């Protein structure tokens, strides 16, 4: 009867395990993982296409598609200047999209549905500005957005 009163108690266990070093090690591991933990930034993708025939075959394409909305992007005087076709540079995003939408509507009126928006940026334009234009076009439901064939120029040296 006397033996059953201390079942499960520490005194009942003749070989006690010292858990303190284990706790120390686990603390260190926790600390390491907590310090190295990085929360993922919410990121995603924007789908674009490259022309299928570029770099694939050297023969000229069967038909030359002239219906396109070409957005030129140039880095002038420390800022990105954007213009559509041979029009004047757009002063704002709104102005740029109005021009693009106007051209898009003109094509639609003529019954043309297959016209790409071609982003023709020079090598020194910041990538974020290119993505900004891409974003604006996507927002206005222009799905066919392509990048113009690159001009092989070295990136300017020096900042």
């Amino acid at each position, binding site marked *: 009867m006397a033996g059953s009163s201390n079942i499960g108690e520490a005194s009942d266990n003749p070989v006690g395990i010292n858990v303190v070093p284990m706790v120390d090690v686990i*603390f260190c591991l*926790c600390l390491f993982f907590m310090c190295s933990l990085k929360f993922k930034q919410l990121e995603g993708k924007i789908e674009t296409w490259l022309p299928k025939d570029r770099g694939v075959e050297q023969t000229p394409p069967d038909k030359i598609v002239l219906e396109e909305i070409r957005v030129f992007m140039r880095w002038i005087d420390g800022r990105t200047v954007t213009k559509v076709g041979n029009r004047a540079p757009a002063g704002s995003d709104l102005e740029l999209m109005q021009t693009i939408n106007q051209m898009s509507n003109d094509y639609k009126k003529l019954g043309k549905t297959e016209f790409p928006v071609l982003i023709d940026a020079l090598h020194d334009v910041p990538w974020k500005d290119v993505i900004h234009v891409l974003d604006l076009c996507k927002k206005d439901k222009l799905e066919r957005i392509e990048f113009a064939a690159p001009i092989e120029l070295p990136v300017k040296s*020096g*900042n």
Partner: protein
Amino acid sequence: MSKKGIAIQEDITPNLIPMIDIMFLLLLFLMISSDMAQRELEDVRLPIADVVKEDKPDSDNKEGERLTINVYHLLENQASCSVYEGGGICREERHWRIGVKGVDFTDMEKLFQLLDKEAASGRKGDNPKALRVSERKVMIRADGAAPYGMPQKAMNVCARAGMYKIDVGAAQPSPDGGAPKKSSH
């Protein structure tokens, strides 16, 4: 006559078992959530876009079948670039790297060899005209501060390899509208 005090020694031992249990769970959570695998995604400040699609694996293009090309700013010998650190656009070409799965592919010929090999799995059909075209997807994750010339080079090599399905990596705008932090997994 002095009274002898009765010394009562209480053995107060804290029960460590629940604490160990909790710490094990915490450790398990941290170990699972940390990515010990080889880095596919480099540290970049992605450009912000409102129309970013959640990057879920498509039904026809499994995640493993897409190749990610990173364009990131990296200087040798831990040197720092004041322009980039200050949030500016660094136009020094040698400051930029093009990497795939943690390997430097800034050399375009080397990148082409890799992409050409990777594109082979996505090439279908018997049509000789379409033979070089690959259905394999490529994601270009370029730093927003990179000059367009860098991702453009990568795109050019993709086109040479017949890879025309390009996803562009972008970050969702943060609720506070702040500048994006460097992103990696």
